[in-house]
């Protein structure tokens, strides 16, 4: 146990200071929490759906949960069921084999719900457009609030997209 505590102490707090004055993204953690509360009346619960991605976007969504980004500190967390979610985070060019499951997942999210498409393929600007096996961007299957390009978008861009969707709903 002492080794674990020692390592915890040695590693310290990796979370990075939130505000960068020119960073529209995280003006301050407090303001952000306030916005989430004002928009949703509670913290933000996200459900991720891989609708046919190559798994690179998934790696960066995972990275968003590492200590550097301190996601839960902002009041954002990933949940296991769409019924508990406020926002659906969807990756991939939507494969035809996944279109039905994606649609059903979206229907299970209670209103008001937000949809953020992640990555070039999900946004419709990637290498993988529509063909016999894919419907193309997420917007071809669901109403999308915000699309985050990038192949894959780095964690901060994903976070920016999530916050943009929340802000948009507020406005």
């Amino acid at each position, binding site marked *: 146990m002492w080794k674990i505590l020692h390592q915890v102490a040695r*590693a310290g707090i990796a979370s990075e200071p939130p505000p960068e004055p020119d960073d529209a993204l995280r003006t301050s953690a407090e303001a952000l929490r306030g916005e989430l509360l004002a928009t949703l009346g509670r913290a933000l619960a996200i459900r*991720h759906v891989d609708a046919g991605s190559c798994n690179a976007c998934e790696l960066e969504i995972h990275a968003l949960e*590492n200590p550097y980004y301190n996601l839960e500190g902002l009041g954002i967390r*990933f949940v296991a069921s769409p019924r508990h979610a406020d926002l659906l985070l969807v990756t*991939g060019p939507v494969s035809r*084999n996944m*279109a*039905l499951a994606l649609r059903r997942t979206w229907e299970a999210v209670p209103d008001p719900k937000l949809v953020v498409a992640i990555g070039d393929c999900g946004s419709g600007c990637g290498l993988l457009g529509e063909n*016999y096996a894919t419907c193309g961007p997420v917007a071809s299957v669901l109403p999308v609030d915000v699309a985050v390009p990038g192949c894959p978008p*780095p964690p901060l861009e994903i976070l920016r997209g999530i916050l943009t969707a929340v802000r948009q709903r507020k406005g």
Partner: protein
Amino acid sequence: MRRLGVDFLALGGALPAWHAAVGAAHWHDAARHAHASGVRLVSLWGTDRRAAGGTLVVSAAYALPEGIAWLDLPLRDESAGYPDLAGLYPAAIRLQRATADLLGIAPAGATDTRPWLDHGAWTERHPLRIDPAPNPEPASRDYPFVRVEGDGVHEIAVGPVHAGTIEPGHFRFSVVGEKVLRLEERLGYAHKGMEQRLARCAPLEGHRLAGRISGDSTVAYAWAYAMALEAATGCAVPPRAAHLRALLLERERVANHLGDLGALGNDGAFAFGLAQFSRLREDWLRLSRAAFGHRLLMDTVVPGGVAVDVDDATAPRLLAQCDAIEIEVRRLRAIYDEHAGLQDRFAGTGRVSAELAAQLGLVGLAARASGRPGDLRCDQPWAPYDRLAVRQAAHSAGDVAARVAVRFDELMESLRLIRALLGDLPEGGSRVTVVVRPSPGFGTGRAEGWRGEVFVALELGADGRIVRCHVHDPSWHDWPVVEHAVIGNIVPDFPLINKSFNLSYSGHDL
């Protein structure tokens, strides 16, 4: 060269490969020969060569000790099928089912004829034919899972949408109480028609698509694709390019092992492990971004070499990071090893014996944890691995603990390799121009990705365009083994067992 009772012609390329066309009798005899001498089936796929006056063809690649043996069986009468390899190589079952979905050619007398990748929702049938038929009513169909009957048996259906950030797939468990009697997988949800896309893209652009077959193995795929194209066009890459490719491949291995070691701790209810390893992984990815322009190293390997280089300022940063990560990983390994609760979850869980691994054809990282050696970097060292004397990880318990141990060992070895590669970087250019001439050509590419061997078989036509580019993920061989690894375990251990293999859905579904 005469092997497996067949006369082969040598193909060019960085790794040795041979090619031959055979009839149905020789197809089966060669498979029997290969199986009897312990030779691995690497992949099986189909090609439509009718545009050039040929036929539909089924192909197989075997990993001989000397290199790849690529066999073609042209089908004069496609309705007669071809000899079934499932009896010799169980991994052929799904490969043959996928080939039936993509090309409409199936083995004669196969016992499992259920569609595999085609769930009924595609807008085309047999999309890899030159004349795919439109599907009049695309709609996802139900799948006839095998039912287990008996007192107290019930089914748990999981997926394709999972309770976490995971790729899509369906798992059907038949359980009694908490104990798993049987697991049946249904995959194909992430099928994006990658092989049709590859056949329609310019050869010099294919590496970008290949690098998006499975995002976690983008370097391995781009390298294997580039190697196949270079083989088919007779291009030799400069030594510095080979070194840099290996450097990128080892960085990809380290990044994935760091991620998996954290996730495995988390699945063993040790969140501390995830916090620590994900911090190290983030450090690693950030330096990849700074040094090579991309966190996951996408599009860094290109036909003819690499699109990146290491300058005098970058090399010391890469070396310093190896030292820093090594110290931290040693500390964390000691903590993992001594943590009774974690070891209790790891040890004996999801066991695959050496016999089972051999019988089912387990490959890659998981095989090295089950006493079944095989690592392309050691077995068939190509430049620059031929100068590095790679030490292969070897464990035999075949459980989650062994797959964790292999990752720790390989992570350390990759750090050593990165140091060696940086210390011995040849001078000169890092990229040459690949010239694609309008003449037919065949080429194979292989790379030992972090999960196992990635294989690419490329065929260029007389017009210099791609006739067929078959890409093969090691997950094809290992997914069926996961079904066996969970038998007798409890349902709550499935996520841990699945993570310990961490197979690719996208790489398999294509």
